[in-house]
C-alpha cells in the first residue's frame, strides 16, 4: 500500500530523525504512541496505523504513556524507554488521567512538547475541541477513527519538522542530512507564508505533502477542526 511519493518523503524525513535519535537503527518509519483505555479501540487504531506504515506502541492509560516516554518518575528526563516517538494519539475520556491531562503534561515537558499530539473522542463537543487545540493539540478526531484520519495525522509528523524549523534546524548538523540536502534547505528557508514556491523546486517530495504545508492549500481549509465546528453548529 505504499505510495511512491510517500516513501520518498518519509525516508527523507526520518534521516533527519536518525541523526538525532538515540537508537538510529529504529526509525525507518513514523513511530506513533497510541493511548486508549478501550481494548477494541486500541486494536483498531493499531491496525489503522500499521496499515499506514507506522510503527505503533499502544498503551492503555496516560500514566503508561508517560512511563513509556520516560516522563513519569523522572520529570524532564531524556531517557527513552524505546523508540523515539514521532506522534502521540490519545483518547480523551480515560479513567485516571484524561487525554487532555496527558496533553498538558506532554506540552509542559521540554523534551516532548514538540511531539504532535492528536486527541480522539467519541463526543463532538466544541468546547472540548477548543480546549484541546488551545493546549497545543494538533488535531481532534471524532471517533470512530477512519483510515483517512490516520493518513491526515501522519502529515503532522512531517509538517512539524519541516515548517516550524523545529525539527530540521535543530537536527541538521548530522551527516545523514547530506544525503538529501536540497529539499530541507529549500523548505527551511521558506517560512510557512511563502511555502507555495518550493513545490516546483523539490522534485523528490510528493506535491501533496508540500501542499499540506501551505496555508492556502485545500487541506488546511478542509481541516477537521473546521469541519467539526461546522458540524456542531448545525
Amino acid at each position, binding site marked *: 500500500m505504499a505510495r511512491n511519493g510517500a516513501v520518498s518523503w518519509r525516508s527523507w524525513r526520518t534521516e533527519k530523525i536518525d541523526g538525532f535519535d538515540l537508537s538510529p537503527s529504529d526509525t525507518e518509519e513514523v513511530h506513533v504512541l497510541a493511548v486508549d483505555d*478501550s*481494548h*477494541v*479501540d486500541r*486494536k*483498531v487504531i493499531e*491496525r*489503522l496505523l500499521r*496499515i499506514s506504515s507506522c510503527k505503533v506502541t499502544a498503551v492503555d492509560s496516560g500514566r503508561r504513556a508517560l512511563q513509556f516516554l520516560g516522563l513519569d518518575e523522572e520529570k524532564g528526563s531524556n531517557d527513552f524507554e524505546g523508540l523515539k516517538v514521532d506522534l502521540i494519539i490519545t483518547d480523551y*475520556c480515560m479513567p485516571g488521567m484524561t487525554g487532555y491531562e496527558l496533553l498538558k503534561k506532554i506540552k509542559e515537558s521540554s523534551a516532548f512538547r514538540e511531539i504532535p499530539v492528536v486527541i480522539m473522542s*467519541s463526543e463532538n463537543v466544541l468546547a472540548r475541541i477548543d480546549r484541546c487545540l488551545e493546549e497545543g493539540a494538533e488535531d481532534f478526531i471524532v*471517533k*470512530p477513527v*477512519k*483510515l483517512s484520519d490516520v493518513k491526515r495525522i501522519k502529515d503532522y509528523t512531517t509538517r512539524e519538522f519541516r515548517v516550524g524549523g523545529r525539527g530540521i534546524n535543530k537536527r541538521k548538523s548530522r551527516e545523514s542530512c547530506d544525503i538529501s540536502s536540497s529539499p530541507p534547505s529549500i523548505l527551511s528557508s521558506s517560512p510557512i507564508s511563502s511555502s507555495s514556491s518550493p513545490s516546483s523546486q523539490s522534485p523528490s517530495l510528493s506535491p501533496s505533502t508540500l501542499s499540506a504545508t501551505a496555508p492556502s492549500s485545500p487541506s488546511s481549509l478542509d481541516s477537521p477542526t473546521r469541519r467539526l465546528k461546522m458540524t456542531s453548529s448545525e
Partner: protein
Amino acid sequence: MILLKAGYLDEQFIQLEELQDEANPSFVQEIVTLFYTDSARLVQNIEQALNGRPIDFSKLDDYMHQFKGSCSSIGAKKVTNECSVFREYCNAENAEGCIRTFQQIKQEYATLRRKLEAYFQILRQAAGA
C-alpha cells in the same frame, strides 16, 4: 452487504474490512470477538448498576459511554443507536426508560452476534471452497 442494508452495521464495519489483507485475513473477526469478550464485562456492570437502589446514574452513564464507544468502533449501528437512547434516559434520570432501553440493547447485541457469526461462517466456507 446485507447486514449493512438491514441497518445492523454501518460504514465503520466496512472500514474495518478494508483493513484486512493477506497478512491479516481475520482482522474483523478478531475485533468482533474482542468486542464481545470485552463488552460482556460492561454489560454486566450496567446490569448491576441498574439493579442498584438508588440507581447511580452517573456511573451508569460512564459504563454506557464506554460500551457505546466500543459498539461504534465496530460499526454496530443499531446497538449504538440504542445506546444513545439509553444515555438520554440516563441524563434525565429516568430509571424505567433506562431499564426498558437496556433490554432492547441486549437483544440487539445478541442478534448482531448471531448474524455476525453466520456471516463469518459464510466467509470461511467461501474461503475454503
